[in-house]
């Protein structure tokens, strides 16, 4: 086996989430009996990765949202890696932005950080658990979304 390019592209959590969800559906449809022998490794990693990703903000994103997010990020002059992290993490506090944006003190003013938090919150869909006031309702909301 030969590795041609160990870093051909970076993938956002949403892309991986979508790929794995589709693959899971596809495998379910094609029937287990014949094709799934020797695929325990794939099943394990698929299950574990989906379990992890479904708890991150990416499970509520779609291609339109990602596109809109990237367009709104253009004037902020962030690097690819920084935008990717904002997309994956959906930061809600200034301290998180400062972690993800390198040398944010020099590059961004306080107003710009505030604006960034605001855009991220507006464009990327948030966790229903945090947006619902009552914790009981929130758990219901999450359960419905996962099913």
């Amino acid at each position: 086996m030969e590795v041609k390019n160990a870093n051909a592209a970076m993938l956002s959590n949403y892309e991986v989430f979508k790929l794995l969800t589709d693959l899971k559906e596809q495998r379910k449809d094609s029937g287990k009996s014949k094709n799934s022998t020797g695929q325990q490794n794939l099943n394990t990693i698929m299950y574990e990765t989906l379990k992890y990703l479904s708890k991150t903000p990416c499970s509520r994103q779609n291609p339109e949202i990602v596109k809109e997010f990237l367009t709104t990020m253009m004037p902020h002059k962030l690097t690819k890696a920084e935008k990717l992290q904002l997309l994956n993490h959906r930061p809600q506090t200034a301290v998180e932005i400062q972690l993800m944006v390198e040398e944010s003190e020099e590059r961004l003013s306080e107003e710009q950080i505030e604006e960034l938090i605001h855009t991220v919150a507006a464009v990327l869909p948030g966790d229903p658990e945090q947006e619902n006031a009552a914790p009981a309702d929130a758990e219901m909301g999450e359960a419905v979304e996962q099913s």
Partner: protein
Amino acid sequence: MFVLVEMVDTVRIPPWNFQRQLNEAIAEELNKKLANKVVYNVGLCICLYDITKLDDSYIFPGDGASHTIVHFRYVVFHPFLDEILLGKIKYCSQEGVHVTMGFFDDILIPPESLQQPAKFDEAEQVWLWEYETDEGAHDLYMDQGEDIRFRVTDEIFVDTSPTGPATADLPAQPPTVPPPAEEIVEKKEAPYTLIGTICDPGLGLLSWWNS
């Protein structure tokens, strides 16, 4: 966190899979070989992304299977340096805080990279941050199962492939031989370890920064 990796491999399709679509059979073989495995200096393989090119298939004398050179792209877990990740504390030990992401376990935050001043509680086997406020020091415990945000500072790849008499250092395994499963059982050493830090504002347990 995830990257696309372009790879080329020769895939052997046994005759009993000839009735299936070639790319379907190849996708399955590639996932069988790579999924949930660490490739040296590449990362933890998750699943096939797509097949970009199929060369002609060959049948060799004495083997009924077909051999095809396949160009494909694979989804690999390989966070870049300084990336911020979210995990859960697996356990604490003298070596530091061990973090898991569910699908990937070998993440270590060494003691010098914890929020300072840090102390190891021998009785409870847990690290704590002696956070100082005006009213005195607060002990912030890093209990098992807590969500933790950390920054990747280093990665360590260990070549766990069986070493022959001559130490060939490239993992040039013949494509027809799948990596032996007992390899993992024999050696405890993790093939791919991430070293993290939480020594920055905003890093550490999520509950520290929520209030």
